[in-house]
């Protein structure tokens, strides 16, 4: 079980801010593959989006970053603060 968070335009596009996902995935990439099966907006936001930003447990991560139960995975667009 991992905690998945969506921020900014991703939250709006996907219609949720966070969820618990019970399926087991070895990497962020596997989780993305799985989530993308939910529909076109998921596929566009996560699978086909070259600007996708990922964090695992508050650190910047990549598609090949390993995840384990209890981890917090976040998806968001490029940051624009400051």
């Amino acid at each position, binding site marked *: 079980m991992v905690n998945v*968070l969506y*921020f*900014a*335009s991703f939250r709006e596009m996907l219609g949720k801010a966070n969820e618990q996902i019970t399926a087991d995935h070895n990497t962020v990439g596997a989780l993305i593959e799985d989530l993308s099966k939910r529909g076109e907006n998921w596929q566009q936001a996560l699978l086909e989006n070259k*600007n996708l930003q990922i*964090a695992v447990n*508050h*650190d*910047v991560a990549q598609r090949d970053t390993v995840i384990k139960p209890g981890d917090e995975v*976040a998806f*968001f*667009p*490029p*940051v*624009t*603060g*400051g």
Partner: protein
Amino acid sequence: MSEFPYIKIQQKDFDLTTEVAAMRAGHKDIGAVVSFVGTVRDINEGDEVSILELEHYPGMTEKALEKIRLEAHDRWKLESSLIIHRIGKMYPTDQIVLVAVSSRHRENAFYASHFIMDYLKTNAPFWKKETLPDGEERWVDARVTDKEAEKRWIQ
């Protein structure tokens, strides 16, 4: 005292004099203090902006900013530093962010504050949404120039 006392994420505005004084407190060997304040412009991408709303990723934000702050201390031997970033709704001319640093000599303070801002822009999880006068809302796009600005600091 929070986990990172020199990082503040808050809705409320900040007072420059007060915050700089707090950052300097207890550090006597300071010759230079540089403060950067980012403010809401009333124009973006050629359109008038009425409201700017800042969202962030609690937990990751503090961690990302603290990492940037400590790297600045390492590279420029700062005496002290402080980062305040506001979240929520803001309006043209409002203060958004404060980066204040102190050091013995001015050069280090100038470089360190510039470095912190450049890295904050591309590494701290904040997102801006702007509302135009007709009520249209849109997420602000990341600027390519910000990514380029970050590169100048790569050693």
